[in-house]
């Protein structure tokens, strides 16, 4: 825990140093290295594409550098940086959506998903509880996936997640509640399958 708090102080300090000296690349690089893989996980889960993910990491960290003076220490550095990352991911979604609509108009895309449906059914029989949860999670609406990931993987609290996504804590808790409801059902099915048979 002490280690965690020290890291958080160190990060705040780095951000303030960047704000005071924007041409010192070493300070920026240190902060960047603390966040590269966390942001890579975050963006990869949103975009599923390495190239897009790398662009977004760059853009996020450039904004961190540009707006470092706006960081006021009221939130944890990670909350602030993930808030920026989240808004970047929304921009990306919107751009994707626009492009998708445009493409849709140009060519009526063929549905290629039917093909692997049989494979999925087959796999379901053999997979364990974790895989079942993962599959169910991947099918949840984006906001539910996001809140589950931020909470369980990135270890943010509800309040911090609320700060990142710009919704109230109550809304974030509701999303988590809804997500859990769906996932719990799947879990029950898998967990007690043996008991019923």
């Amino acid at each position, binding site marked *: *825990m002490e280690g965690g*708090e020290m890291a*958080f*102080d160190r990060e*705040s*300090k780095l951000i*303030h140093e960047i704000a005071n000296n*924007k*041409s010192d*690349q070493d300070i*920026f*690089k240190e902060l*960047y*290295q603390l966040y*590269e*893989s966390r942001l*890579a*996980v975050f963006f*990869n*889960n949103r975009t599923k594409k*390495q190239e897009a*993910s*790398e662009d977004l*990491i*760059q853009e996020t*960290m*450039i904004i961190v*550098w*540009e707006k470092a003076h706006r*960081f*006021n*220490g*009221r939130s*944890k550095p990670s909350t602030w940086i993930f808030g920026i990352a989240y808004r970047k991911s929304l921009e990306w979604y919107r751009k994707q959506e626009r492009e998708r609509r445009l493409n849709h108009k140009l060519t009526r895309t063929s549905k290629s998903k039917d093909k692997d449906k049989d494979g999925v059914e087959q796999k379901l029989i053999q997979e364990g*509880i*974790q*895989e079942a*949860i*993962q599959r169910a*999670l991947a099918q949840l609406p984006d906001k539910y996936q996001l809140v*589950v*990931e931020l*909470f*369980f*993987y990135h*270890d943010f*609290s509800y*309040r911090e997640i609320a700060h990142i996504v710009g919704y109230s804590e109550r809304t974030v808790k509701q999303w988590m509640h809804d997500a*859990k409801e769906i*996932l*719990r059902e799947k*879990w*029950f099915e898998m*967990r007690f399958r043996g008991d019923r048979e």
Partner: protein
Amino acid sequence: MNREKLDHQGIIELLSLYIKGTLTEQEHERVEAHLAGCEACRNELEFLQDLQAAVTTMTEIPTVSPNLLERTADRIRERNRVVQEKFWKRWLASLGVDGDTVVVRLRVRTAIAIAGIALVFFGLGLFLGQQLLSDRSVEDQVATSKEILFAYHTPQAEAVYLVGSFNGWQVEVTPMERGREGIWTVTVALEPGRYEYMFIVDGEWVTDPNAPRTADSGFGVKNGIINVAGSEM
């Protein structure tokens, strides 16, 4: 109200924090005592553990190009350059000069102007620096850093906020984080100066018992006072 029932709902709420290990010792014990006698909660706990395991195992750290940091740093250098260029262009424009073509012609004149201004500021800086140095010994230097860590020990609290003259005494803008042993902390970046502050613990205004100094708030309680001295850099 039925205490058992009340506790059950409360425990369900706490379970996700229980698996994250962020409960206070008391809460932790409460959860464990309840789990021993409640199958529904044990199921919920098992579900949450599986969920957490699923989330962490499905998330592989993706590969990132090894030169991504350098590329980002390059973009920043480029922006720095553009920003500086823009600054000078704007500065020239404010002198009534516009367009890139005039830049060359004006270089000598602007250079003289800049040198003149710089000289004035340098002199002023020297003078002020001397003044500050002589004042410094009198100021009480509670903190020389601009990063101020506020801490308050209150294990039972649900929510603690820091309020003070630095955030306009606005309630709920500076939440504190609960750490181990019920110590709540928040770090705030403060410019050098004198600030008054208090904690709000579950809605109640509390004076920091460890405040370096206190002053009457006018509301029958005392505000903590902190002096942030300028850092020597």
